[in-house]
């Protein structure tokens, strides 16, 4: 099932790493981020000490509780989020809005890094929606397949229209 998810995300033009452990994941994220970049990182990212590691890398952090978050997010180069769950077929990741995990982090920055726990992967959208609908819903549950795209230009897919142009998914090992 994880293989199906990985293949599907790659077919959607995502870069996919893992499944890996927490330390490897942290290293992969830090490696990905350019020094000096403004990084918006949501609180629901299940990787301890990530923000410290990013600072060590030379990134400037924009946390969700920063009063200037709304004003500065458009300048962020990277958005890092966790996820509520993922589905293998069709390949898609669900992000839940909450205090500390705003919607814009996976939308405005041109590069989105998304952490998905292997334990949160379900087989089909039907399974996922049945489960989701039975529980308390967030104000926004957003399914993401990959980078923003359009087919409006003579039906040829072009990436990076309004949302991120690059999506990197890091799969975290099961516990």
């Amino acid at each position: 099932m994880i293989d199906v998810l990985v293949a599907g995300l790659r077919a959607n033009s995502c870069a996919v790493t893992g499944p890996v452990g927490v330390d490897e994941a942290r290293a992969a994220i830090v490696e990905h981020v350019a020094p000096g970049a403004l990084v918006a990182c949501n609180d629901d990212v299940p990787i301890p000490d990530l923000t410290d590691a990013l600072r060590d890398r030379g990134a400037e952090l924009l946390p969700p509780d920063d009063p200037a978050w709304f004003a500065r997010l458009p300048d962020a180069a990277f958005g890092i989020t966790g996820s509520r769950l993922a589905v293998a077929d069709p390949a898609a990741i669900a992000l839940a809005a909450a205090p500390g995990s705003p919607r814009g982090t996976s939308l405005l920055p041109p590069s989105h890094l998304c952490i998905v726990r292997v334990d949160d992967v379900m087989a089909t959208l039907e399974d996922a929606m049945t489960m989701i609908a039975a529980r308390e819903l967030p104000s926004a549950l957003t399914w993401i397949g990959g980078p923003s795209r359009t087919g409006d230009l003579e039906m040829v897919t072009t990436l990076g229209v309004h949302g991120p142009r690059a999506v990197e998914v890091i799969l975290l090992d099961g516990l």
Partner: protein
Amino acid sequence: MSAHDGHAITTPGADFRERTASAVADPVLQQALHNLDRRFRTASEAAAAHPGRKERAAAIRRETLRDLDGWLDRLEAALTARGVHVYRAATPAEARRTIVDLARARGARTVVKSKSMATEEIDLGNALVDAGLTSIETDLGEYIVQLAGERPSHMITPAIHKTLAQIRDVLAAEANRELPVDREALTEWAHQRLRGEFLRADIGVTGVNFAAADTGTLVLVTNEGNGRFCTTWPRTHIALMPVEKVIPRLADTGVLLPLLTTHATGQSLSNYVTMLSGPRREGEADGPDELHVVFLDNRRRTLLGTKYEEMLACIRCGACLNVCPVYRNVSGHAYDAVYSGPMGKVLTPLLSGGAEGTDLPYGSSLCHACSDACPVRIPLGDMILSLRADVPAPQSAPRRRRRVFWTVWSRAWATPSGYRATTAIGRISRGKVPGLRAWTATRDLPRPARRSFRDRWAEEHR
């Protein structure tokens, strides 16, 4: 009989025919339409796959229609419980007024719109402009046609009728500078321009793909991210929801969403699906402060209990457009209506109460490719045929003339002697009947045989 190529006995008006003739003769349009062949194939493949899923989806949609008012009441209650403001608009005018009043009351200046055929249906863009607001279409295809001053020509791919060079011309005129005929460059320019609009907009207006009555959740399907932007950054989100978009349960989206996207674009799921359950909550850094939903009726509920009720099952996938031999050769503008293709042939005369599009149902070869392609099993071909008997109004002059002709014909042909007499006339005149120029202009017509089959048989079996 009319000298106008037999229209008196075939088609009530010539306008749709003239527009299709222009479209067929337009080489640039024809070149652009070749790009739709890929969607023809994916729609055909989707039609053949997952028959079980289509049956389930058809059942869900019909369950909804059997008690549409009940499901709308439940949806309203669930939305209201989440702090969403709900309005009911019987007509396009009411819907426009509701939305414009909401915008004015908030002192809004700029509206960003995500693609919504319903907003086209009520002509919201012009109403906002008339009210002194700036309204920007943010779906790239819609943005292009907005700049070009045109209607969308396809519900999923609004600018399908334009070549890349034509798109470049439209965008370059807006940019007031040179732009290359290059997808990446044009997309990047649009991205930058529209990013600015998103960030300063006061109001986001969207449609709704599905609205779940059990949880009060709005579901929006996009690929570009503009739908997400419109519902995340502006302080107010207004969603215009045609009444048939309600579904009983959020869990139903597990079946309906992949069906919609596979039939629309061949994607197993659209790049983004946004499920909104109320406005921003306490402590959240983004999301609208207010969420308003306008239920739009516009004569839809008059279809309930009629032979056209199932048209309300439509999930707006566009598959019927993609497989229609007429649509594929003329594109959406020839229909001169908000909704084009086979579903537009049905909806336009019905939603306008017979005021518009009465010649649309005649521009069909009744091949039923649409009925086959429909993921929720709407008998589109049968409805198109049925509408020929229902529109234009039976008491109108063209209909009376037509009825007289076919009544006379059927009385003659309901008896063997009448049939023999009239076909003998046909033979004697060597097939020269007025009104056949429409055929003979481009095709040869065979002459009636010297001896009919029945005469041969009678002689051979005497």
